[in-house]
């Protein structure tokens, strides 16, 4: 049913709104074939998945996997030359930019969840992380509930801020939650004492702490608030492109090559400062690699 409200709004805004409203678009592969370019959306501070090195080039674990996908596209379309464009995206704009065709794929640190699957599709999960908080040592904070009356920051546009907002309301924790524009700014708020803690995916927190001035000042909570499967994002309702990209990821997993890529970014020194994160592959991720899945259900990763 198209409700009168929808018709009214459609009329005043001058946009067509159909029932259930999915607008069909040419497939991504056709678009790439026509334009000869493949646009990759990347992040600037999602260490070590997708971030900028000292030459402002996007690099990282997710970016490397996307590089393999680009190779596969070139082969599939038998293109002599495929131009790869890089577009910086943020937590807040990555889904709209993918939906409107600005980027063809998003290679960052994006949690796969059921809400987002209404707008986008995911390739098989390539990393599993958890929502935790980072805080300064010796401030009496260990778990989320210790933050009553204090300020918790999280990055705008993330599943983390949504989750802590919900927990704060449902458990009546009395935490003031503020949003920051990017991961670095949120971390700066903890560093300068503006906020008592920063809620984010643990792997990103580890990267921020490792790159900070005094890494030993900070501690990441043992308490995990959620399980966050990361996946590379592609447009919804484009089965041809998704199948091709899925196969690239699955073959990396079945051949064991994914382990080499993982080691390179999570266990060895990485640019720009040659810091080693030292995060061994979790049992969750090992299970996913044995049985690749794009399920948004956290239970599938336990």
């Amino acid at each position, binding site marked *: 049913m198209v409700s009168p409200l929808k018709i009214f709004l459609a009329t005043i805004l001058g946009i067509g709104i159909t029932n259930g409203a999915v607008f069909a678009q040419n497939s991504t592969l056709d678009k790439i074939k026509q334009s000869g370019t493949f646009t990759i959306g990347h992040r600037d501070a999602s260490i070590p998945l997708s971030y900028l090195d000292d030459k402002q080039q996007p690099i990282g674990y997710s970016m490397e996997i996307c590089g393999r996908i680009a190779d596969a596209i070139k082969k599939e379309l038998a293109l002599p030359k495929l131009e790869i464009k890089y577009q910086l995206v943020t937590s807040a704009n990555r889904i709209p930019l993918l939906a409107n065709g600005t980027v063809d794929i998003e290679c960052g640190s994006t949690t796969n969840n059921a*809400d987002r699957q209404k707008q986008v599709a995911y390739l098989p999960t390539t990393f599993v992380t958890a929502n935790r908080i980072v805080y300064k040592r010796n401030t009496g904070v260990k778990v989320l509930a210790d933050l009553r009356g204090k300020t918790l920051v999280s990055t705008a546009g993330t599943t983390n801020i949504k989750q802590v907002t919900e927990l704060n309301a449902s458990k009546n924790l009395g935490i003031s939650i503020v949003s920051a524009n990017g991961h670095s700014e949120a971390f700066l708020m903890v560093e300068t004492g503006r906020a008592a803690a920063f809620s984010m995916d643990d792997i990103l927190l580890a990267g921020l702490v490792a790159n900070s001035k005094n890494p030993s000042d900070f501690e990441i909570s043992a308490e995990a608030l959620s399980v966050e499967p990361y996946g590379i994002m592609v447009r919804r309702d484009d089965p041809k492109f998704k199948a091709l990209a899925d196969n690239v990821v699955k073959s990396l997993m079945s051949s064991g090559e994914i382990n080499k890529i993982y080691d390179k970014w999570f266990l060895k020194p990485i640019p720009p400062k040659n810091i080693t994160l030292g995060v061994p592959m979790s049992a969750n991720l090992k299970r996913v690699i044995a049985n690749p899945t794009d399920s948004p259900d956290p239970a599938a990763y336990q």
Partner: protein
Amino acid sequence: MSYNWNWAIFFDLEPGATGTYFAYLLGGLGWTLVIAGLAWMLALLLGFLVGTLRTIGSSVIERCCFAYTELFRNIPLLVQMFLWYFVLPEVVPNSLGTAIKAIPPPWGSAYPAILCLGTFMSVRVAEQVRAGIASLPRGQMAAALAIGLTRRQAYRYIILPLVIRIILPPLSSEFLNTIKNSSLALTIGVMELTARARAMQEFSFQVFEAFAAATIIYLVVNLFVVFCMSHIEQRIQISGVIGGRKSNSLLQH
């Protein structure tokens, strides 16, 4: 474009469970009006002060006011927000810095936003006040002094009342700018209208609905301001002086 439209989203509960998304956006509008309103008062106060002081003929004061104006109008507002919020508490004495940082949200972010926006807009007001005073014939001040008014009284009763009428149309634009610029307060964590529209799209993934609503709300608020300011302009006009023409269009500027 592949997108699922869902206009009914405004009636869904937001994740913080304070109410519907619609109420959530209206709460954001409240913060927009608080920030813009207080910043605008500060801007008028400082702007009239600095703009007037630049015309009194004391070279020391004029130079100070010139420095103030150039400092605040030549740094991007976004950068200034960052400076007021992150840098100021680190450069003042430690105890004061700690006290500033201890102000709980939302005011911990709102105060810097108001100060930042207020000072930024004040230099624009000051420039207009200065230009307005300069546009008056020199004889105006001389005549005021000749009838026995002191300099202060001349500014208070003759010069500034005329200047206000001359610069009211551009001041209305500056007020609209203040409302629109208040959206930059989201970068330091104030949950005003744009921030809430953004948060709404992040929570619900209905980006176009969220920003369509924000667009309409800003438009309605600003049109209301335009309407009110035109009304004020007509009410206070004096025929025979600059800015005192019988204006007829409501939306003249």
